[in-house]
């Protein structure tokens, strides 16, 4: 065979394998900062999206809280948001529900899923496994921009005639499938909502594809699976969950949209009469939506919290100066959570007309899932024993996360039992539970990650004084807000009420006022964080390559922030388990994964 053919053959061999990851540093601004293939830039973009989303979501929650505490009080300027939703600046019931739905959707999808998973994962997973980039950079870029479009579509529903949907983030059918007959925002609002979520699912599926392949195929030499840091493990496990959960939500959204635009009857049963008019649907199954939704919905809760666990463990170990009691037990526990999360979804439907036997069937795995969670907590506590905890903002938030996770976790005991659910279902107890365990805890995880990794992402330290102030206000404020939720729930205060006209709830209004004030303060405290973020980005003191004396690969990049291909022209070779702190016979109190130093561990000695 002739010369050029053999060249082809060589080309084909050379181009196979990881070539996808090798792309050259872009020069144009657009390719560098907007449509970038660089996982680091994409990670930052995700973080920015989450930041924008969380600000909107928090403002919405403020408005809701004010309305709940002082119903029918005018909120100056509210009519600017929606003239029909706030005549004379007084919030209408439908507008309250619309704000509530948007708050939940924005927070669950565009904050708690994007920030800890997509944002940090994108930035640090490839670095922590010692790769130059994700294997499919174009999919990665699409993943962000698709998600971004999903966000825009969701926001667009604020500007349609009847405003966004009021059906709650669970969008129970048939209310969500009836169109405007169901109420304001149930027409176009729901269609936009479902479209936005379906788009979001596509984005996250693309992301999960990249995360999984990165973890499995892109690890550098010496980086065996058990040498991955816990954060990397958590992102890997989360992406496995995302892959399956979002793949189920998308069909559900498609069917929901069809019920709206094509007049099908997947979710709307026969003989539905609204405003004395028989609705033109028949035979649909309302429970079908609940099954599809919660099959996604419960894993989604763990998608929000598992990355938090990983990040917090990672941050904590570095600041404890000793590894976790057991690396593997933590990994197995997170895995167990992921697997069990698919078997427990029915506990959201104990009272929804499901066969009471299946309620019991679902209640047992739900109770069992407390075992891995407890294991995680006990491992954390046990590891704190004999540590040398460095108190800085990152570690404070990590420890705060544990406290929150415990507080939110124990209330799970109650909600796992159908018999008690009779009293607590759809009350503020549930709201308190998930805000604590997946809302605030996850937020604390994000904060810990931010204060910990900011130096690597931007080459500057964040301001510790501001950071600590931010932590104290957030920690105390959070408890002030969400602990009372549980009491309200015990007293039978039903959630998703825009006002408390029910007589037995009126004595509880003072509690709501207290919560509202706490919420306003805690929310204001987040402005400190925002300021700190912006200030430190430009004026923070320059960061060293490894400011926390940490061991994992992201701290052994040649420059800070890392160069375009993360490790310069030589990929790191990994010699150690991820967390070699306080190792006997070692010069320092830590050994980086890349250092060839030969030492023995305490348990060997």
């Amino acid at each position: 065979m002739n010369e050029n053919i053999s060249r082809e053959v060589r080309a084909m061999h050379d181009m196979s394998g990881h070539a996808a990851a090798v792309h050259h540093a872009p020069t144009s601004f657009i390719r560098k900062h907007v449509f970038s293939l660089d996982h680091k830039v994409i990670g930052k973009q995700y973080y920015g999206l989450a930041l924008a989303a969380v600000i909107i979501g928090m403002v919405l929650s403020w408005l809701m809280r004010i309305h709940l505490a002082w119903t029918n009080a005018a909120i100056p300027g509210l009519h600017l948001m929606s003239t029909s939703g706030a005549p004379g600046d007084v919030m209408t019931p439908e507008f309250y529900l619309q704000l509530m739905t948007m708050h939940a959707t924005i927070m669950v999808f565009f904050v708690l899923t994007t920030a800890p998973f997509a944002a940090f994962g994108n930035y640090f997973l490839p670095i922590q496994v010692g790769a130059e980039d994700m294997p499919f950079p174009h999919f990665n870029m699409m993943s962000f921009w698709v998600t971004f479009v999903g966000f825009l579509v969701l926001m667009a529903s604020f500007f349609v005639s009847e405003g966004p949907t009021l059906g709650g983030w669970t969008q129970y059918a048939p209310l969500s499938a009836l169109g405007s007959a169901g109420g304001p925002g149930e027409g176009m609002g729901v269609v936009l909502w479902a479209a936005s979520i379906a788009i979001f699912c596509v984005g996250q599926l693309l992301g999960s594809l990249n995360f999984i392949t990165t973890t499995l195929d892109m690890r550098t030499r010496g980086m065996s699976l058990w040498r991955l840091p816990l954060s990397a493990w958590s992102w890997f496990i989360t992406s496995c969950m995302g892959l399956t959960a979002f793949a189920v939500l998308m069909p559900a959204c498609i069917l929901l949209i069809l019920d709206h635009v094509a007049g099908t009857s997947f979710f709307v049963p026969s003989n539905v009469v609204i405003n004395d008019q028989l609705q033109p649907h028949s035979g649909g199954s309302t429970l079908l939506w609940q099954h599809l939704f919660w099959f996604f919905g419960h894993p989604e809760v763990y998608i929000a919290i598992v990355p938090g666990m990983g990040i917090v463990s990672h941050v904590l170990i570095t600041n404890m100066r000793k590894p976790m009691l057991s690396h593997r037990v933590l990994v197995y526990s997170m895995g167990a959570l992921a697997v069990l999360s698919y078997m427990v979804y029915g506990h959201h439907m104990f009272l929804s007309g499901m066969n009471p036997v299946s309620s019991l069937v679902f209640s047992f795995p739900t109770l069992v899932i407390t075992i891995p969670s407890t294991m995680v907590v006990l491992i954390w506590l046990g590891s704190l024993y004999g540590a040398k905890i460095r108190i800085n903002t990152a570690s404070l938030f990590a420890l705060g996360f544990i406290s929150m996770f415990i507080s939110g976790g124990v209330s799970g005991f109650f909600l796992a039992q159908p018999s008690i659910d009779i009293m607590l279902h759809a009350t503020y107890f549930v709201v308190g539970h998930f805000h604590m365990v997946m809302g605030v805890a996850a937020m604390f995880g994000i904060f810990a990650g931010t204060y910990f990794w900011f130096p690597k992402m931007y080459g500057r330290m964040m301001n510790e004084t501001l950071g600590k102030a931010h932590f104290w206000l957030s920690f105390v404020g959070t408890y002030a807000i969400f602990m009372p939720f549980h009491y309200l729930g015990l007293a039978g205060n039903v959630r998703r009420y825009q006002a408390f006209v029910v007589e037995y709830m009126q004595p509880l209004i003072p509690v709501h006022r207290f919560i509202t004030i706490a919420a306003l303060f805690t929310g204001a405290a987040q402005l400190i964080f925002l300021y700190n973020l912006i200030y430190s980005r430009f004026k923070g003191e320059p960061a060293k390559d490894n400011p926390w004396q940490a061991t994992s690969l992201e701290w052994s990049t040649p420059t800070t922030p890392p160069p375009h291909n993360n490790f310069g022209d030589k990929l790191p070779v990994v010699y150690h388990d991820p967390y070699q702190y306080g190792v006997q016979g070692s010069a320092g109190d830590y050994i980086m994964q890349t250092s060839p130093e030969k030492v023995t561990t305490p348990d060997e000695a």
Partner: protein
Amino acid sequence: MKTWYKRTCAILSALVVSAVLVAVVGEQVKAAGEGSITGTVKLNGTAPHMKGIDMSKDPYCVAQHKDSPAKLENVVVGSGGGIQNVVLYLSEGLPANAASAVPSQEPTFDQKGCLYAPHVMAVDVDQKFKVSTSDQTTHNIHPLPATGSGNIGWNKSQPPGAPPIETTWKNPEIAIPVKCNIHPWMHGWHVVVKGPYAITDENGNFTIKNVPAGSYTVTAWQEEYGTQTAKVTVAGGQAAKADFTFKAK
């Protein structure tokens, strides 16, 4: 110089005066050309029993009706058998220019004691009207025009103390039901007509004003008994008579 000034003043004042005169006289002539239609709408037979309304779901509403229990208002018969809330309008014979004239006054559709006051409101096409609330409980106002009527339905809440909603209907429609979903018993009617209209008082009496001379078909609409028509001829400046009688079911 002075004389010139005086003359101009005189001319000007003369002009003004004559203009005023013309205006006034013209007005009178026009007024003389417009007549009215008066009459009564009666019920032949015994008035149907109006069910009481149990508002116990909302204690506020109950409190509003402590002394006089609320009843349905589908057929309200006054002394002498006159039916209240019957809408009368000119269904035929109206010249285009008169039909297109839109009254300037704004009727108000109030929510009082968890009922609509008035129970039936008639408006002209494009006539502005207000929907207000006097209650200390939140209502949602939900007019449901027929599909294809060209009118677009809406559904808005009014918390206590919220400013009135001011709007119009774009097309004639007999009649648009109005609901409050929070208080399912609340229902009323918007009757959208073209041209002059009237609505009967508690004794069933009505007067359609500003009817140009001509002969018309007057239609009376009642929510339970439907419509009746009568041919009426209005002479300039005169008041024509038209009485209607609905048969009790």
